[in-house]
C-alpha cells in the first residue's frame, strides 16, 4: 500500500475507500436478511421439539431413518448424473460454438439460451407432454413400429434426469464456451503445424486450457441440482425422492419443522462439502498448469 504523507490526501484516499465499501451495503443487508437470518432460524428449529423445547431428538430421528439416506443417495445420483451428461453433451457443444464463425455462434447460442428464458414450470410440463405414455415421443416410437410398447420415459428417474439436464445444459455451457472462446486461435494452429491431429489438439491444448471453465460449469450444475424440487416433483411421479422432496413432504404431511430443518441442514452441509471440493480442484488445476502435458 502506498503511504500518503499529506494528511489531506490520506483523508481523501480513506473517503474514497469508504465510499466504494459502502456500495456493498445494500447487498450485505439483503444477504443478511434473506440468507443468514433464515439459516440461523433453521438451525434453531432443528433443535426444538414441536412443543418448543430443546432437543437433539430431531437429529437422531432423521439420521437414523433409512428414508433420509436413500434421499441423499437419490440427490447425489441426480446431481452426478446431470453433471455427467452435461459434461458429455456440453463440452463438445461448447467446442463447436467456440470454433464456429461469430455469426453462426451467436445464432446457435440464442437457441441454447432459449430454454433459460422460459419458466421452469412451463418447461417441466412441456417435457411431461413429450415424454408420457401417450406423449409425442412414445406416439412416434410405437407409431413407426420402432418399439412395440411405449417406453417408460417419465414419472421415473430417467424423466427427472432429462428435465434436469435440459435445465442445466445452458448454464454449464456458458462458462465452458467462454473459456474455449478465449483460447488464442493461433495456439490451435501452432499445435497443428507441429503435427497434432485435431483429437490431439483437443486433448493437449483445448481441454487443459478450458479446464477452469469446465470446473466452474460443474460447480454451477452441482449447486443448482442438489436442491432441485420442481423437476423431480413433476417428472418423478412420486418415485424419485431427493432431499428437497423429503423436506417438502416432512413439512406438508407431518408439519414436522424440526425434522425438516435437520434435512435442510444436511443439504447445506452437502453443498458446503462440494463447494470445498471444487475449490480444491480449481487450486490443483492452477498449480498443475505448468507441468508438462504429454500427447
Amino acid at each position, binding site marked *: 500500500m502506498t503511504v500518503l504523507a499529506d494528511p489531506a490526501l490520506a483523508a481523501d484516499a480513506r473517503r474514497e475507500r469508504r465510499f466504494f465499501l459502502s456500495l456493498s451495503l445494500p447487498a450485505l443487508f439483503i444477504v443478511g436478511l434473506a440468507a443468514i437470518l433464515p439459516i440461523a432460524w433453521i438451525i434453531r428449529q432443528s433443535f426444538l421439539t414441536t412443543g418448543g423445547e430443546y432437543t437433539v431428538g430431531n437429529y437422531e430421528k432423521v439420521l437414523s431413518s433409512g428414508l433420509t439416506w436413500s434421499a441423499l443417495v437419490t440427490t447425489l445420483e441426480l446431481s452426478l448424473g446431470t453433471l455427467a451428461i452435461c459434461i458429455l453433451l456440453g463440452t463438445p457443444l461448447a467446442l463447436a460454438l467456440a470454433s464456429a464463425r461469430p455469426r453462426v455462434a451467436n445464432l446457435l447460442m440464442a437457441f441454447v439460451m432459449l430454454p433459460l428464458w422460459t419458466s421452469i414450470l412451463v418447461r417441466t410440463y412441456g417435457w411431461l407432454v413429450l415424454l408420457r405414455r401417450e406423449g409425442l415421443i412414445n406416439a412416434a416410437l410405437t407409431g413407426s413400429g420402432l418399439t412395440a410398447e411405449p417406453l417408460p420415459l417419465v414419472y421415473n428417474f430417467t424423466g427427472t434426469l432429462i428435465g434436469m439436464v435440459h435445465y442445466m445444459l445452458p448454464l454449464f455451457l456458458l462458462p465452458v464456451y467462454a473459456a474455449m472462446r478465449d483460447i488464442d486461435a493461433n*495456439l490451435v494452429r501452432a499445435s497443428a*503445424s*507441429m503435427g497434432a491431429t485435431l483429437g*490431439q489438439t483437443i486433448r493437449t491444448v483445448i481441454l487443459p486450457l478450458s479446464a477452469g471453465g469446465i470446473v466452474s460449469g460443474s460447480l454451477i450444475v452441482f449447486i443448482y441440482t442438489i436442491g432441485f424440487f420442481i423437476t423431480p416433483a413433476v417428472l418423478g411421479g412420486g418415485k424419485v425422492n431427493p432431499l428437497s422432496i423429503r423436506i417438502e413432504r416432512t413439512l406438508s404431511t407431518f408439519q414436522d419443522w424440526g425434522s425438516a430443518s435437520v434435512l435442510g441442514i444436511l443439504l447445506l452441509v452437502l453443498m458446503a462439502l462440494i463447494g470445498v471440493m471444487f475449490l480444491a480442484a480449481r487450486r490443483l488445476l492452477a498449480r498443475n498448469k505448468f507441468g508438462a502435458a504429454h500427447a
Partner: protein
Amino acid sequence: MKSLPITIDSVRKAYGSYVALDDVSLDIQAGEFLTLLGPSGSGKTTLLMALAGFVRPDSGKLLLGDRDITRLAPNKRDIGIVFQNYALFPHMNVLANVEYPLVLRKTPKAEARQRALDTLARVKLDGLSERNIAALSGGQRQRVALARAIVFEPRVMLMDEPLSALDKNLRETMQYEIRRLHDDLGITTIYVTHDQREALIMSDRVAVMNSGRIQQIDTPQQIYDRPSTRFVAEFMGEANIVAPGSVRRIDGADASRETLMIRAESFHLDAKLVGRDGVALEGTLRAKAFRGENWLLTLALDGGREVLVCIPAALAGGCAELATGQRVTAYAPAAKVHTIPGAVA
C-alpha cells in the same frame, strides 16, 4: 537436414469481393531466406497461411519440393511456423513446449528431452527449460517459439512478423540471430514483415507485395536501388519521384525524359562529390531537421513538388547554417538516378 524448394503457382484467394491473393506465383529455392514485404492488407500473411495450410486457396497450386501440398492437412505438411504472438502453450513450461512436436512424433522420451534441451541451447535459452511461459520476457518467448519451430527439423520454416512485438534493440539482435540460425540449418525460410529495413538486413531475396500481388522480387540491393514500380520505390525508403524536366544534367546534356527515382540519401550539396554526368536539382529550403546521423532537408522545386534530401552528418558542413527560404541545389551521381519503367510522376 535436407531443405526443399517451394513453388507457389498462380494462387488466388478472395474473401467476397476482396481479393487477398491475386494469382500469386513465386519460386523459392531450397535453403533460401525469402522475405514477403508489404503493408498490412497486402496479402503477405494470407500467402504464408496458405503455405501453412490454414487458408485454403480458391485456385492455384502449392508445391513443397515436387510434392503437391495444396490439399494436404496442416499437420501433415512438416512446416515449422513462428507466429506473430509466439503462440506458446501457456499451460506447459518451456521444455514441454519445445518437446511438444517430438512427443507428437512418438520420439522416445529421453531422446525428445535431449533434442529439446539441445535446441534450447542453440537459441541461448539453456537453464530456462523449467520456466513457466508467463515468467519469460518477450525476447525469451521469441526464442522458445523459434526452438519449438526447428526442434522437429522441418524442411521449411515460415515466420509471421515474429519480431514485431519486440523493442528496437532486441529486434535488431534477433534479426541477426534468426539469420545466423537459418545459415546454420540451411532451412528454406519464408519471412513476413512490414519493416523494410528488416527485410533488407535479413533476406537473400525480397518479394514486395501490394494489394494481393507481388510487385517485385529481387535481392535487397536491387529492390532498394532499382525498384520496378513507384510503389516499391516509395515503400522501400525515402524515395523522391522526380517528374521529367525538373532535373538538369550537370554537364548540360539532355536530362532524362522519364520519371526518375532518387533516394534522399543519394544527394550531396557539393557538386564536386558527384561526377560530370550527375544531375542537379534546385529548390527552396522548406524545412530542415537534425536526425543524429544525418540532416533531412525538404526542398520545394519550382513546380511545387517537394524533394527530401538526406545529408550524412559527417558530410553536412554548412547544413546547420542553412536557413529556410534559401535556394539550395542538390546533386546526385548518375549511378544513383534510377528510371522507373513506365511510371508517371
